[in-house]
């Protein structure tokens, strides 16, 4: 039996889909058999982030409604042997699927896969209910901002009420320089306030923009700081004991800038 994990946040736009794509590919690169489920019905996104948007024939709602078999709807990623995607329906709405149906679907997938990762839509309505219904555990993504952390706290409360206790936290879009200057909350600050386990810290990274354009998530990019962070996270998910490295907050003055310029050119 594989693990079914929902990636959720409360506030929108904090990096759930980015995280789902990177964790999925990262786990696949470790040799795990992974399926990604996009539950953002009506606003599908994950297919574009992983670069599989042109291969969609059937979707989540088709499977649930019995219009096709599960095997027909799963898209296999040709770049990463053991990665599959179950896309969201684009023309339906969130009520097209029920929490019961999601529970059955996740159980079925957990038979065949090591990891079932569910990309949750923003908000706390039906889409959220569906996304968490079949999950064994949750990863909560937040940015280090007051509004995002506040919503994350709300989500953690709701998850615990649904019996998904001990969610793990990813703090995304950290800017080490700003943290050092005292102008951004550190990942540990956020962790302390929320009182949950910290799974990883992902820095703000321009590579993510490039990766999104290309449809090739940063986890496979050696020179990307966010990519490195995601690689560490997947190893933790796979059971390895990988310490959370403090992000490099040293701007190194003039020489540091020079060094970074050279590094960027090399990369």
């Amino acid at each position, binding site marked *: 039996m594989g693990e079914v994990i929902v990636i959720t946040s409360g506030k929108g736009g904090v990096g759930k889909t980015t995280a789902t794509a990177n964790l999925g590919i990262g786990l696949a690169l470790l040799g795990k058999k992974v399926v990604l489920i996009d539950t953002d019905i009506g606003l599908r996104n994950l297919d574009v982030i992983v670069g599989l948007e042109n291969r969609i024939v059937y979707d989540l709602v088709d499977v649930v409604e019995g219009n096709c078999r599960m095997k027909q709807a799963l898209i296999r990623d040709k770049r990463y042997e053991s990665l599959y995607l179950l896309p969201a329906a684009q023309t339906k709405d969130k009520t097209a699927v029920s929490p019961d149906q999601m529970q059955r679907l996740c159980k079925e997938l957990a038979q065949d896969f090591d990891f079932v990762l569910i990309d949750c839509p923003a908000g706390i309505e039906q889409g959220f209910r569906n996304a968490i219904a079949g999950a064994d555990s949750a990863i909560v993504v937040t940015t*280090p*901002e*007051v509004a995002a*952390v*506040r919503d994350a*706290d*709300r989500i953690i*409360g709701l998850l615990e009420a649904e019996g998904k206790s001990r969610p793990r936290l990813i703090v995304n879009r950290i800017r080490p320089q700003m*943290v050092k*200057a*005292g*102008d*951004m*909350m*550190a990942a540990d*600050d956020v962790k*302390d*306030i*929320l*009182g949950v386990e910290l799974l990883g810290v992902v820095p703000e990274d321009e590579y993510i923009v490039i990766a999104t354009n290309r449809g090739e998530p940063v986890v496979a990019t050696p020179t990307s700081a966010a990519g490195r962070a995601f690689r560490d996270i997947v190893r933790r998910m796979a059971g390895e004991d990988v310490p959370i490295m403090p992000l490099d907050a040293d701007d190194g*003055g003039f020489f540091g800038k020079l060094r970074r310029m050279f590094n960027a050119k090399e990369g």
Partner: protein
Amino acid sequence: MFALLPKLFRREKTRSRDIAMERLRLALVHDRVNVSPQTMEGLRQDMIYAISNYMDVDAQEVAVKLTPTGAAQVALVASIPVNRMKKDALRD
């Protein structure tokens, strides 16, 4: 030399990181317990009623509020000015 200037000025202001933490702590106290002002008022009235059996309190001045005490904890803090003890309460 110039790098030192911002550091000197910064001392005066509270860092925005700390302000964010403080604002969050307060916001979360209320989100977490999810109590309405009406509920808090009901609690205040009930406390005055219960305590009145033992002491004579200044009902107008009784204040009841929730405050953060730790990462995931809140405390109910009440300030209850006492005018005098009730005779019955003093007997034993």
